[in-house]
């Protein structure tokens, strides 16, 4: 407690200052240098968040209002900061990953004619996420939540000359709006019933309302988190969001966008505990179902970035599963580890795209056997893949183990099997992608890689750094550091579960090796023999066609209402009202023909009538 430390001011003001300088000075005068203030702000934010991490580790906590923000009558919300273990640990990951991706993006976007605009949006994305993490109440968090949504819209549609990018940007924005409505309703419900939206006050008043009320609030919050963190049924925007530049995908999938939903649920854990247990069951089942479905779909996609997108959905499902099991520790641990290895994998995919000179995205049909040409990227990708699949001693191994541990601690057999299958699936799709892209060339691959080249300089350093984190960040788990931050019980390593996890991951690896390197044509053969199965899987197990039909139904009913009710009844009624007014005006207009005598006649007649009326009354 005490005064707000300098580092927290840095977190808020450094990005704001960088954005101001970037927008008013660099964007107009030195557009090719707009990344300077952004990088400076990133470094400041990194330093501040690491300092805060150390302070919080030493036991410091801050939860302070900064100024009166929304005041109207009895309605009073302060703008404040909350810096506890959860915020500090996620913030450190976001700051580190965000900074590395900023560095990467400088080189990646170097030749883009709109370099300056890109960096303004990009840094705004980063700033919104930091604001979201350090908010001390739901309403303030909601504002930054919307900022994240806006920035993602601008960045997905950054290459707005492409129709697909525009469509993807709109899709992301609209689907997120659907989720945001849930978050906003939850915040307003809390405000109206409890009179406060501050986390501390809300969590202190959990006994004052019925579990039913908190269940409704928790479900609404989860609805919002479903949209941001791409959970079924609101996950549909994330695969299309690959239309943006690759650094955007990396930032969105690792640090900023999708982490927000899981963070919200982790933050609201006391509220979830006050709700009916069925709410947490629903979250767990949604997470498990999403993770399993997305893992299956990721196993058959051919576009590099789309495989990674479905993989993100799958891993977010795992985090939600952990949330549903009531384990903030597992969810946040996996969030942090996932941030490192997914950013690494996306940057590697970016290297491939950049190295092959492709403008949009490349996929399995175009490139293969890239290892001799991009050896460093290939090694980094292999490290990321091992981390994602959960091989020791990577970060993903420990975090996945924590999730599995939470599921085996509180879930039924169905959820346990689902968790293990998800591990097999993740391992399968990521190693399939690794083998198909980097090792061995299949006859079916067209071979765009002919003049592919390795990424250089500033594009490799962030990749190297992230590879180190993806390997080593797991130490925060078994050393008890993260558990100390979150106030959770110290992790109790179960070698049985670790063995199970490694076994499942090895099974996936073996299957991937069989499917890509032993029977090299398998990926093409099954598509040829069962095209309907491929179409069904490609359409997200029929979900996309169902959504299209649902949308068509909505459109038809809306048009039925518009035609039958609005136009035939309501419009007809208003039209007749307007018509009678016009008729009345035309009839009365005949009285004023501009003939003075007539006016005087009417005046006299009216005087006589009025006088007689008044005389009678008197």
């Amino acid at each position, binding site marked *: 407690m005490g005064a707000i430390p300098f580092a927290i001011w840095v977190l808020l003001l450094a990005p704001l200052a960088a954005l101001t300088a970037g927008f008013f000075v660099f964007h107009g005068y030195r557009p090719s240098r707009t990344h300077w203030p952004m990088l400076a702000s990133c470094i400041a934010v990194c330093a501040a968040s690491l300092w805060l991490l150390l302070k919080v580790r030493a036991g410091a906590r801050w939860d302070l209002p900064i100024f009166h923000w929304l005041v109207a009558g009895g309605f009073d919300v302060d703008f404040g900061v909350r810096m506890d273990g959860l915020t500090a640990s996620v913030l450190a990951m976001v700051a580190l990953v965000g900074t590395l991706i900023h560095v990467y993006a400088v080189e990646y976007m170097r030749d883009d004619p709109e370099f300056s605009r890109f960096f303004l949006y990009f840094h705004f994305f980063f700033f919104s996420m930091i604001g979201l993490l350090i908010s001390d109440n739901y309403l303030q968090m909601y504002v930054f939540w919307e900022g994240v949504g806006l920035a993602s819209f601008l960045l997905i549609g950054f290459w707005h000359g492409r129709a697909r990018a525009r469509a993807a940007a709109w899709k992301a924005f609209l689907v997120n709006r659907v989720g945001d409505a849930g978050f906003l309703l939850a915040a307003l419900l809390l405000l109206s019933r409890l009179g406060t939206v501050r986390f501390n006050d809300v969590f202190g008043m959990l006994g004052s309302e019925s579990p039913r009320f908190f269940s409704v609030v928790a479900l609404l919050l989860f609805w919002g988190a479903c949209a941001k963190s791409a959970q079924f049924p609101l996950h549909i925007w994330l695969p299309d969001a690959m239309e943006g530049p690759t650094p955007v995908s990396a930032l969105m999938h690792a640090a900023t966008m999708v982490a927000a939903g899981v963070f919200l649920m982790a933050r609201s854990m006391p509220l979830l505990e006050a709700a009916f247990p069925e709410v947490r069951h629903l979250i767990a089942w949604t997470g498990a179902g999403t993770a399993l479905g997305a893992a299956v779909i990721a196993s058959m996609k051919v576009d590099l970035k789309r495989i990674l997108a479905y993989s993100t959905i799958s891993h977010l499902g795992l985090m939600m599963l952990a949330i549903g099991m009531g384990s903030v520790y597992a969810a946040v641990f996996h969030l942090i580890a996932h941030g490192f290895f997914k950013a690494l994998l996306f940057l590697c995919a970016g290297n491939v795209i950049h190295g092959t000179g492709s403008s949009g995205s490349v996929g399995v049909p175009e490139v293969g056997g890239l290892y001799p040409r991009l050896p460093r990227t290939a090694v980094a990708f292999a490290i990321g893949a091992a981390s994602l699949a959960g091989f020791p001693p990577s970060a993903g191994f420990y975090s996945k183990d924590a999730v599995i541990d939470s599921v085996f601690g509180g879930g039924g057999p169905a959820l346990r099997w689902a968790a293990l299958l998800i591990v097999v699936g993740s391992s399968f799709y990521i190693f399939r992608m690794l083998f198909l892209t980097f090792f061995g060339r299949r006859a079916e691959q067209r071979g765009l890689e002919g003049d592919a080249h390795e990424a250089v300089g500033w594009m490799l350093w962030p990749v190297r750094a992230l590879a180190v984190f993806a390997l080593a960040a797991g130490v925060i788990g078994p050393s008890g550091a993260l558990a100390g931050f979150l106030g959770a019980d110290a992790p109790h390593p179960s070698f049985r579960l670790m063995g199970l996890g490694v076994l499942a991951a090895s099974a996936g690896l073996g299957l991937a090796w069989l499917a890509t390197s032993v029977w090299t044509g398998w990926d093409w053969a099954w598509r040829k023999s069962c095209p309907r199965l491929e179409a069904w899987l490609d359409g997200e197990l029929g979900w996309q066609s169902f959504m299209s039909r649902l949308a068509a139904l909505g459109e038809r009913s809306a048009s039925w209402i518009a035609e039958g009710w609005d136009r035939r009844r309501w419009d007809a009624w208003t039209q007749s009202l307007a018509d009678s007014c016009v008729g009345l005006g035309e009839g009365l207009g005949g009285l004023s023909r*501009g*003939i*003075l*005598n007539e006016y*005087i006649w009417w005046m*006299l007649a009216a005087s006589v009538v009025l006088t007689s009326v008044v005389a009678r009354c008197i």
Partner: protein
Amino acid sequence: MNAEVIIWAISGFLFLAGAALLVFRRQLLAMILGLELLLNAAGLGFVYYSARWQNAEGLAIALLVIAVAAAEAVVGLGFLIALSRDGSAAETGDIRALAD
């Protein structure tokens, strides 16, 4: 037949004549004449009742009415002269600048 009835008859006749001029004649001059008749029909009543009830207020109002009538005649006749100089006819039906 007492004086009151005679006065009311004359006053009523003047008023009706003035109203008829206003309603049926289209020449501006005739309408201004009609207006004067209306005012004087009222003024006659004021003078009679002032004399009958020995109250000078009626006389004062009659004087006021005459003053108003004079001012009104000035405005009306000036209007008339301006219109005839302008080349417009002195008939009200021809003044349609506001109607059209």
